[in-house]
Structure formats: C-alpha cells, structure tokens
C-alpha cells in the first residue's frame, strides 16, 4: 500500500518535472536563431483567428443569459440600473478568460494534441530530429507563443461581444435604460479588473498550449494512445484552467 503510494508519487513527480523541462526548453529554443516568425504567425492564425467564430458565439449567448438572470435578480431590489456593471464585471473578471480558454482548449487545443501526436506516431518528429532541426523549436515553441498571444486577444473579443450581448437582452428586450446600462459599466469597471482579466488570459493561454503540446509530444505509439492523449490534454487543461483561476482570483482580490 505504502509502496504503491510511493511509486505513484514518484511517477507523478517525474511527470511534472518532465512537463516543466518541456516548456522551459521550448522557451530556451525560442530565443535562439533561426527565429520562426512565419511559424508563429501560422499558429496564431490557427489558434486565434480560426477560434474567433466559436468564441463570438459563446460570448454572445453568455452575455445574453447573464443579462437575463441578472435582470430578474436585480429587479427584486429595484436596481436594474446596475445590470451593465453586473454583466461587465462577471465577463471581464471571470467568464471571459475562463470560457474563452475552455473554448480554445476544445477547438484548438485538442487539434494541436492530435496533430503533434500523429507526427509522433508517424515518426515525423523523429524525422525533424534526424535533419538536425529541434522539434521543440520548430514545432512546439511557435504554438506556445501563439497561445500566449492568441488567447488574450480572444478574451478581449469575448468580453466586448458578451457585454453587447448583455445589452441586447437587458436594454432592447427587457427595457433597462441604455444610459444606465453603459454608465454603470463605466463607473464600476476598474483598471484592476481589466488587469486581472489580462493576467488570467495570458496564463490560461500558456496552460492550454503547454498541456496540449506536451500530451501530443509524448503520445504512445498507437491509435489508442493518440485518443488517450487528446482526451487527457482536454481534461487536464480544462481542470487546470479552473483550478488556476481560483488561485489567481484569490490572490488578485
């Protein structure tokens, strides 16, 4: 029993060490020439641009449902005028970063794991190695950078679209005054809220691309291994996003 626990602990600790080494060496390769500007742009296009539609869709409906729920709660206290600030603060502080990162995990993260995993299984990663091209530099580092840049940008879009979605329901459907909606946002949202949201989205961007690249890179040599790697990548990065969100929030507040 104790032995099993010990063995389990050793495996986990070793895995964590390997994950840390993975991301550190990828960043170390990033600052060495040749610089893969074109690769970074390609990944940014994939992670960022191609996720825009799904992020906009999620953001719109999230903002709308927030306004709907918020309106009926606030009406009990006769303070419908605060609807704008309620929507905007939940968006900027919590839902924007978390939901956008979860959507990126589901859409781009799983695809990244599968792509890298297939390259591993079909020996394309070994082929890079034999050509004396470091796969961490060529394949992984651009994806990490793209995650770091792409997710915050998507979160920004998410926040804006969400707030407009809220106004669509709150102002146009439920009849909150337009001036009150936008004024309450202006007076309630602080730089600290924005700053916290940016910090969150950057760290979530790193989590998604890090975990998804790592799981793909160390895929076991089989189709089953690839399936498992993709599942693990999505589950682990989603859980880590939520856990890390809690810790960041508790520190930021």
């Amino acid at each position, binding site marked *: 029993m104790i032995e099993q626990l010990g063995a389990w602990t050793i495996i986990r600790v070793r895995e964590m060490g390997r994950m840390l080494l993975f991301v550190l060496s990828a960043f170390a390769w990033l600052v060495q020439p040749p610089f893969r500007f074109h690769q970074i742009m390609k990944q940014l296009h994939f992670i960022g641009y191609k996720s825009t539609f799904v992020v906009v869709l999620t953001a719109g409906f999230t903002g709308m449902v927030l306004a709907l729920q918020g309106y009926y709660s606030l009406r009990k206290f006769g303070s419908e005028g605060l609807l704008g600030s309620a929507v905007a603060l939940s968006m900027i502080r919590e839902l924007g970063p978390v939901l956008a990162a979860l959507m990126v995990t589901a859409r781009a993260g799983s695809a990244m794991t599968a792509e890298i995993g297939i*390259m591993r299984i079909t*020996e394309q990663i070994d082929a890079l*190695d*034999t*050509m*004396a*091209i470091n796969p961490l530099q060529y394949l992984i580092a651009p994806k990490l950078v793209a995650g770091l840049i792409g997710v915050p940008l998507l979160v920004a879009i998410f926040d804006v679209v969400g707030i407009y979605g809220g106004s669509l329901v709150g102002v146009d459907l439920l009849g909150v005054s337009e001036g009150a909606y936008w004024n309450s946002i202006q007076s309630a949202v602080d730089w600290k809220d924005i700053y916290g949201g940016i910090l969150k989205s950057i760290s979530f961007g790193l989590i998604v691309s890090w975990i998804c690249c790592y799981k793909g890179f160390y895929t076991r040599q089989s189709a089953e291994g690839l399936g498992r790697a993709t599942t693990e990548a999505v589950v682990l990065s989603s859980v880590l996003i939520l856990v890390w969100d809690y810790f960041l929030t508790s520190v930021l507040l």
Partner: protein
Amino acid sequence: MGLFSHLGLALEPMIKLIGVEKKLGGQPVLQGVDLTIPVGKLTTIIGRSGEGKSVLLKHMIGLMQPDRGEVWVGDVEISRLSGTRLNDVRKKFAMLFQGAALFDSLSVYENVAFPLREKLRLTGPAVARRVEEKLGEVGLAGMGHKFPAELSGGMRKRAGLARALVMEPEIILFDEPTTGLDPLMAKSIHDLIVTMHRRFGFTAVMVSHEIPEIFAISDWVAMLRKGKIASMATAAEFQRTTDPEIHEFISVGGTVALPGSLVG
C-alpha cells in the same frame, strides 16, 4: 562475436557500435551489440520481427541513447551527446523511415525542399533546381504539387528517399524501406536504393526482412539475434553459412537463395 566478424574488422568503419545495451519498458532489447558499418558499403541488418532492428538503427543517429555501450560515428562518440554537438553529427546523416515520415502539411516538393531551406538556408531557384533534380532521380518528376496523403505507399517511399538524398549525406539509414509494398514495388524501391548508392557512394545501413532479395543488393549482411549480432559477412558468404539457426532463418519460405543466382 559473430561468425565472420574478423572480416568486418578489416574494413574502414563509418559507424561502430561497442557493447550497446538497451532496455525498453523493462525488457532487454539490445544485449551487447558489437557492429561495424563499413564506409561506402550497403550493409543490411536482418533479424526476426521485434528483435530490435529499428531500435539498433535509431541508436546510430542518436534518436535513442544506449543504456550502456558506445556508438561511434566517424571519430565522434555520440551516445552521450545532445543539442548542437549531436546536430553537427546528424548533418552527416539522412534517414528513410518505415512510413517515409513525410510532413503531412507540406506538398512533396515542400517536403524535399524542407531540409534545404531549413538547414542550408537556400531560397528560390537554387532550391527548385535541386528539388526537381532529386524528384526526377527517384521517378517523381512533375509530382511535386501532390500531398503525402495523395500518394501510394511506394511513391511516399520515393519522396522520402528524395528528401533523404537532397542534402547529399554521407550516411543514409533505411528502416524497412519496402515494408507494406507489393513485391514489384518492393523490387523497384530496392533497385532505386542500389542505383542511388552506386551513383552517390554514401554509406548505407538498411534494416529489412526481405529475404532473399536483400542478398542481391547488399554488400554486407549482419544478423541480429537475441539482442546481439549473431553474424556479419558479405552477402555471398552469408548465404553459404553452416550455422543451422541462420540457415533456417534465411531459408524461410522454402527458397534458399543461391549465391550467383541473384548476386549481380
């Protein structure tokens, strides 16, 4: 030591493995491999499936590190190298993988151009000239625009070979180059390898279980058995062996290749 290893020692070595041991998942795969790959020759490693032939090949180019033992490429011991110094050694190499390992996201042309652009930093017409030339040599002229997914198994191997040849390496490793191909296609790939080997004079190491075909194309044959090199000899000598186990292995399928009937 192998049956004919005294012959191998007389040749100038390109790659030399000394006492290489490797365990995978707790199972011993290589158990003290001593092997010398002579310069400029085509050496084929045969052995049963799962004996670790591909593992052996991957040790030669530093894709795997031995648990024990030494791997020499020229006068460099590579088993403990990493990073830039390993990459310097790898510039001598090219490898044709079992599934050809072409990059899915790139066309055949881009695949062959890839090492030129990435390693030699060549651009424009210099790349085009060398890529077209290599595609022509492997019989894929005009197919550059196709993607790996659109190619047959044999064509993929040809494209992989073009990518391996384009950097004009000193050593090319072939990991079961004909696996999964029909006999005619396999023969055409073998012929292509021999033609390219004669023309460019690189050192070739091939892992295969195409018996007896490989006896006709190889200069040297080494047999891996129970994690060690059981025997290494010239192709002709190898077929005359009296060792019952080797004899049994190379005569599987009922046809013992007769020296002279295939060689040349």
